[in-house]
């Protein structure tokens, strides 16, 4: 059953070229059936009416699939719920009178653009180095010519579920993009289509990751705890194997 709660928000506000600061806002009469982002909508409407610039935060699908949304809520990426994006986190998990600290994802490779919005284009740059199968349109053989074991297809799909939200990076003490990168490397290592470019791919993606200032992985596994899609750290082990096997030679 829904009820209404009041919250105090300490929100990181930061504009272009400015140092950031926390501002305190009251979130009043919040319906517990609302999602976290809907709570922010309500707060923003009130701020707007008062002539205060609304809190900038990113969002699009609000269904937990596009990977746009995300912020630190009391220090946790996407809030503290297991396998939940911020847009799928509902206010019934909070208590009346609670104080919430809201900050953007923090990582060296994710500069803050405004308030809760950070620049995650580094993740696209990693993919651009080879996170795909280089096939030209119209060239493919009949789809059924290569049977793929169901287990492999399922494992590839498990890895492919990554939504590119960057929570793994933001929750890692080193700001490493290892979980993200390993998910893509794994998907293609598990499928025959990915094999011809296997060596080139892993080498290029890992070196791009380093170049962009993502930290190294030191097996803290915070990434997997934070990941809203449950991407498994086994993928990191697979990436390491791929790297050792293919990265050093070729």
């Amino acid at each position: 059953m829904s009820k209404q709660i009041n919250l105090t928000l300490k929100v990181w506000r930061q504009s272009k070229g400015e140092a950031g600061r926390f501002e305190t806002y009251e979130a009043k009469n919040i319906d517990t059936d609302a999602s976290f982002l809907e709570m922010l909508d309500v707060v923003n409407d009130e701020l707007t009416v008062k002539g205060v610039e609304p809190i900038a935060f990113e969002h699009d699908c609000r269904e937990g699939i596009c990977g746009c949304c995300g912020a630190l809520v009391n220090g946790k990426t996407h809030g503290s719920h297991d396998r939940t994006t911020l847009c799928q986190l509902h206010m019934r998990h909070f208590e009346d009178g609670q104080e919430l600290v809201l900050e953007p994802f923090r990582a060296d490779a994710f500069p803050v653009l405004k308030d809760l919005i950070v620049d995650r284009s580094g993740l696209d740059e990693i993919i651009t180095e080879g996170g795909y199968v280089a096939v030209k349109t119209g060239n493919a053989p009949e789809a059924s010519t290569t049977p793929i074991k169901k287990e492999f297809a399922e494992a590839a799909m498990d890895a492919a579920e990554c939504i590119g939200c960057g929570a793994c990076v933001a929750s890692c003490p080193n700001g490493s993009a290892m979980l993200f990168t390993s998910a893509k490397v794994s998907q293609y290592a598990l499928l025959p289509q990915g094999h011809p470019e296997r060596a080139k791919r892993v080498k290029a993606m890992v070196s791009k990751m380093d170049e962009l200032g993502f930290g190294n992985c030191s097996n803290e596994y915070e990434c997997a705890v934070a990941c809203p899609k449950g991407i498994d750290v086994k993928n990191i082990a697979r990436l390491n194997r791929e790297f050792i096997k293919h990265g050093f030679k070729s």
Partner: protein
Amino acid sequence: MKLDAKIPEGPMAEKWKNHKFNAKLVNPSNRRKYNVIVVGTGLAGASAAATLAEQGYNVDCFTYSDSPRRAHSIAAQGGINAAKNYPNDGDSVHRLFYDTVKGGDFRSREANVHRLAECSNLIIDHCVAQGIPFAREYGGYLANRSFGGAQVSRTFYARGQTGQQLLIGAYGALCKEIKSGGVKMHTRCEVIDVVVIDGQARGIISRNLVTGELTRHVADAVVLATGGYGNVFFLSTNAMNCNASAAWRVYKKGAAFANPCFTQIHPTCIPVHGEYQSKLTLMSESLRNDGRIWVPKKKGDTRPPAQIPEDERDYYLERKYPSFGNLVPRDLASRNAKVVCDEGRGVGPTGQAVYLDFADAINRLGKEVIEARYGNLFEMYNRITDDDPYETPMMIYPAVHYTMGGLWVDYNLMTTIPGLYALGECNFSDHGANRLGASALMQGLADGYFVIPNTINDYLASTKIEKATTDHEEFVKAETVAKEKLDKLLSINGKRTVDDFHKELGHLLWNNCGMARNEKGLKEALEKIPKIREEFWKDLNVPGSADDLNQALEKANRVADFMEFAELMVKDALERKESCGGHFREESQTEEGEAKRDDENFCYVAAWEFQGLDKEPVLHKEPLEFEEVKLTQRSYK
């Protein structure tokens, strides 16, 4: 304006092949001399940009998102159709074509639909080669499932995340071309106008959403793949940033807008629960395979569902449509839910919901079977509503889902502005008045991977395109107009927020131009929309500035377009005095309350031409001819 659909001569099954052969080609070494702008990185845009770059063209690709991977296409769950006939259940290109024409209630263009069915198999081949982890059988071959509106299993899927996987595939293809230098990607850039010089589309004005900077980009052709306009209703299953702006602005520059009143309402969504609600979430249609839909027989019966005895329940779909029962098509399931709720028999706190009950199925099959079939959906429902659908029936209500209308395009996917193309949900062409499940993904990828690379050549090779630069007066003018509009939005300093206006407009449209429409309601909406628009320009409050990341300003700029577009949508609905597909005119129904098409008077595509904001738009009609599929009335009794 003259509408020429340019449908190729010859038998249906030969048209596309002949057309490709007859198209003029651009010599490979000359292709890099052409610049093409692609707006949008959903399935249609990403696949088009990647493919055009593969062909050797210089491509500039734009999206307002921070990454091309975020486009709305990513949310599609169910699957993508293709006529592979892997299950050996009688499918064929012809059957997919036939089902789509019939499903669209005979309001689409046969030749386009046939080509779509032909391309469908190539899409699957290509996507498999890209490494998309489609579901597999134990033998290692691709798995299929069935989906609404078809009697064969032709849907390919990747768990409940088909759209995501297909989009990531197209995004990968795009990244490959970014890496090779064929595509220059512009993220966080919103296209706010298209520039037309001497009657040809020659470029765009875009706004950098981080810095606010307006920039001009010149090109030899412009491809719009900007998605649908369902968000005009405010609440819908669409991603929050979906909008009509690019399509609307080119309409104002002379591109015809077709069938704007055709909106698909999806029957199984989580209902609206409060004033704060921003978004409706779809629950897969597959739930209707085992769930039974009912409401109490008595009005205002507020007892919990478990306390309502069997004989006081109305399983209204099973009662009215005994042979199809809960599996009637989307439009019927939606409309009937509305009818019972309007009668005062809706359930839940708002009365705007019906039960989708799994109790019988759980008794019959056991909880494990139901869990295996729908577990992830049940969990999603639970996360949002906090109710447990294993214990108590789900509550569902129809919601705006997909827009079949869009920019009018000919067989080449070119709009009425030469050099301007529209792909995917942004055009009107393949789904008629009602889209079948799993066919939007198919269309987006067919358009981008297979159609546009074979039709744009002909235009570029056979058209004289003068040299132009961004100093041209049309660029200057377009930029000035864009800037003035943004400044104006910021200077109103009124009292109401953008969302407040958007909700008011959306509510009016939902009530008067939603699941059922009638002359009175539509006329009333036509009176009210200009008033809301006037208020908008008088009392809007947009804080912040134009040279900064300003989400309120972005939204205001889009809602301003919805305010104008809504009027055209309602006009179109008023003009079409028949019922067809997603468009149910109450005046045009059979004695049993079913939709009644009027082929004699309305078997056409309505293409509207802009005349100026305070002038009536002109309606042009593209007559539809059916050579292959006989015009018949749909019946599901």
